[in-house]
């Protein structure tokens, strides 16, 4: 009887090999299939069973998890949802997460390695585990001033603390409400996300950092920087002006918007204050050249992406192979395209004496017990321009806002040193122009307090003037005026 018994043993082993083989298929090879299967509620229940950390704008909580009675124990709630949507992003059941919710998920969910000791002590002290907090550098007053100024129209605004690179405000319009996307009702989420995606103006795209536009005359600040860096020029150097200029190799005449520069020559700061296209196109072609311009623009951050930790796409100057394209590029047209974020960086760098600071949105990461895990410290990316160039540029930008013929008078603030540059950008025949303003305000201590860029998408006539006004309001909000 021993031989058949050995056969039975072989059969038994065979049956178990089948079981283990099948389990390997199920648990190992199909692991992803089952984990991500829409019918699988396990992963999310585990995730929603402990309280996710909060996102704060300075001291104001803008994303919190509140307890519910449902199977998913916490509901993500966004106070002032649309105001901060491009920053907080959303955290949904079926559609993943975006913004800070995605970028700092490990801290918020409490799974970050730095929270390991916290998790361990929670186990021994019997506390319910919850996630850490993310505190943004955003000043709610600045953010509110941006939203109030843009007032639902298409546009975006970004503001920095020029000395640290801290983002004081970053707003995109039209915005969306992330609250419905955090709903536990998945059909509502699907309906809402479809609605948002179909909304004109693409509210789920951060127009401040995720899209770029021709910067128009605001780019003249970069052109001026390139010129000053070459040496031999100051804010008061006389440069050619006139109301028309025809670059070589083309018959296309460059003009000024209101024939505002009839003089043959003007001081450089006056040419910027009046925004003479002819001056800057000619200077680019005759003096600066494509290479110098590209180099200066690159030092300001053109061609560079930022991670704040939110992604900021790279702005660009284009190739500028010949005088006609170079002339167009120097008045912020042709292939030049900048994010509002980058244009704010340009002003911040100039206000900060040429030192470009690393932009950051996060001020502090906290453990669930509100102790500090990490505080962001200011770090310098590079010296984009010499401090003397920066000083000259500040004089020129001051003239734009305060000069008798300046285009940026609406940004004036009583008793505050404000500098800036307006811009109007064409972006296609028959389409209303974009309106721009980029500038800065000095604090009472004489150090730069805020740099800001406001962009209005295709408002047409008066767009740059409106952008300038909004920028003034934003700067006032930061200065407490």
């Amino acid at each position, binding site marked *: 009887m*021993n031989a058949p018994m050995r056969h039975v043993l072989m059969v038994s082993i065979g049956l178990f090999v089948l079981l283990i083989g099948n389990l390997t298929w199920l648990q190992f090879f199909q692991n992803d299939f089952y984990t991500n299967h829409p019918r699988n509620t396990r992963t999310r229940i585990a995730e929603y069973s402990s309280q996710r950390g909060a996102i704060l704008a300075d001291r104001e909580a803008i994303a919190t998890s509140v307890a519910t009675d449902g199977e998913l124990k916490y509901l993500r709630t966004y106070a002032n949802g649309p105001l901060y949507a491009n920053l907080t992003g959303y955290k949904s059941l079926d559609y993943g997460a975006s913004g800070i919710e995605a970028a700092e998920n490990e801290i918020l969910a409490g799974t970050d390695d730095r929270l390991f000791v916290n998790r361990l002590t929670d186990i021994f002290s019997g506390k319910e585990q919850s996630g850490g907090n993310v505190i943004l550098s955003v000043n709610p007053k600045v953010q509110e001033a941006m939203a109030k100024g843009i007032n639902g129209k298409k546009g975006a605004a970004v503001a920095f603390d020029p000395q640290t690179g801290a983002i004081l405000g970053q707003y995109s319009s039209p915005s969306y409400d992330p609250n419905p996307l955090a709903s536990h009702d998945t059909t509502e989420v699907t309906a809402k996300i479809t609605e948002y995606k179909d909304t004109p103006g693409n509210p789920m795209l951060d127009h401040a950092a995720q899209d770029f536009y021709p910067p128009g005359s605001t780019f003249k600040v970069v052109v001026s920087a390139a010129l000053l860096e070459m040496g031999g020029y100051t804010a008061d150097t006389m440069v050619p002006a006139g109301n028309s200029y025809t670059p070589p190799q083309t018959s296309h005449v460059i003009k000024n918007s209101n024939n505002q520069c009839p003089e043959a020559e003007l001081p450089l700061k006056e040419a910027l204050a009046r925004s003479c296209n002819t001056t800057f196109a000619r200077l680019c072609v005759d003096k600066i050249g494509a290479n110098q311009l590209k180099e200066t623009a690159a030092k300001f951050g053109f061609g560079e992406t930022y991670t704040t930790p939110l992604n900021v796409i790279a702005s660009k100057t284009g190739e500028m192979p010949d005088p006609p394209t170079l002339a167009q590029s120097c008045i912020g047209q042709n292939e030049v395209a900048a994010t509002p974020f980058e244009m704010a960086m340009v002003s911040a760098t100039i206000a900060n004496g040429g030192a470009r600071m690393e932009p950051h949105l996060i001020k502090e990461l906290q453990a669930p017990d509100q102790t500090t895990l990490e505080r962001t410290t200011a770090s310098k990316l590079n010296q984009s321009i010499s401090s003397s160039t920066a000083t000259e540029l500040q004089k020129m930008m001051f003239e734009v806002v305060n000069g008798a013929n300046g285009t940026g008078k609406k940004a004036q603030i009583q008793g505050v040193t404000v500098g800036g540059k307006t811009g109007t950008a064409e972006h296609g025949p028959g389409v209303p122009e974009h309106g721009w303003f980029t500038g800065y305000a000095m604090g009472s201590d004489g150090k730069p307090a805020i740099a800001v860029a406001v962009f209005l998408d295709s408002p047409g006539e008066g767009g740059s003037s409106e952008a300038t006004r909004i920028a003034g309001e934003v700067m006032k909000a930061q200065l407490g005026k």
Partner: protein
Amino acid sequence: MSATASVPSATAQPRGRTRRNTELMLLLLGLVIIMGFYAAADIALTKQVTSSVFTLPLLLAIPFLAAHVAVRAWAPYADPVLLPAAALLTGMGVVFLRRLDLVPDPYNGIDEPELTTAAGRIDFPLFAGQGIRQYFYVLGALVLFGLVLALLKDHRILSRYAYTLGLAGLVLVALPAILPASISEVNGSKLWIRLGAFSIQPSEFAKLLLLCFFSYYLVRKREVLSLEGRRIFGMVFPRGRDLIPVLVVWGAAILILVFERDLGTSLMYFGLFVSMLYIATQRTSWILIGLSLFAGAAVLAHTLFSNLQLRVMIWSDPWPYAENESYQLVQGLLGMGTGGLFGAGPGQGQPEKVPYASSDFIIAGFGEEIGLVGLTAMLLVYLVIIARGLKVGLTVRDAFGKLLAAGAAFTMGLQVFVIVGGVTKLIPLTGLTTPFLSYGGSSLVANWIVIALLIRISDTSRRPPPPGVTAPGTGGGPAKPDRLDHAPTEVIKL
């Protein structure tokens, strides 16, 4: 098979080596694993370390260590692996049931808001829930384990009562079918005898009794069944009248299927008989006959019974019925699939989402929390029990003991295959308990009696002969036929 190969390998063991200390070490190792699993689960669920983490595992140590003492006293030469392996599985079952007690069961219709928070779980009393009830079943099972070892000094005594046991087994099989559904039906299968709050699953015990009867019967008939017959295609087929016993068992299995509506149990009995028939006669033709009879019955049953068609349907593709018919299967698959290679960790999965997580689908819960690695280890522990059981069959000298041990071991293997295969969608799902793990006293007691029998038989096979009797294979004459054994001695075949 040669003459020497059939000689028990007892001589390979050093004389007098009981290996009881090995058993104790393995048992302690098992208890450490149980404690580790439960501590991890309890901490994960209550978010703190309290004394309750150790209470249940320490309570479990009592019956298992007592069982070890019983083996030392009454079966000192027994196989040292069987008890620790069964204890490990049983203990894991108890602590897993306790772990399930600590979370609300979404299917029991009771609102248990206090179990949704870690703080509420800490206050859950020790003496409540299925975990502690299973613990008491363990106590009962191990008392019976001890009684078997203490009272049954030689397994061959069982063969004296073979017909009585067989008859009792038949009655137990038939009882739920005869009794009104109000007493015997649970979830569509008539497999139970319910007396007030108490319910037993007689098929678990019937399996044991029939095992004894089949062993005795086949030992008596094996020569007839293996020597007579016609040769067809190089295979010896039995004579028509020798087919009668297998047809009777087959018929009984079909009757079980019809009246008790349980494919798993029916398959168990039939598989049990055919495998024992094969072991007794060494004739492959029995397997062929058995498989074709089973296939025929299965096809027939499939066309006749709607619940069988349903099971095959949801097995071939469970997803279209994921909200209804195959909800349980799909939830189990999702749990195991999410568990992945290493599992969510003890106490960190959601095994309660699978209906019947404590009985039929307990293996899915383990798969979710300890992953492929843990579940494979668990299946290997089963395989160790089965292999050890078959080894006991190989080493014991008397034919009755051989058949009893091999039959018991293979039946357990078949049962694990049918239920685990069903839960993991390898084969259509049938309701069977998972030996040692599933919640329920009947299954636990019956399986521990099987372990007791295997330990008893292995003790006999490994026990050195008393002084004055020459050990077989050491130069003395052939082993003296034991007078207790009604069966003929081993027929040496080539």
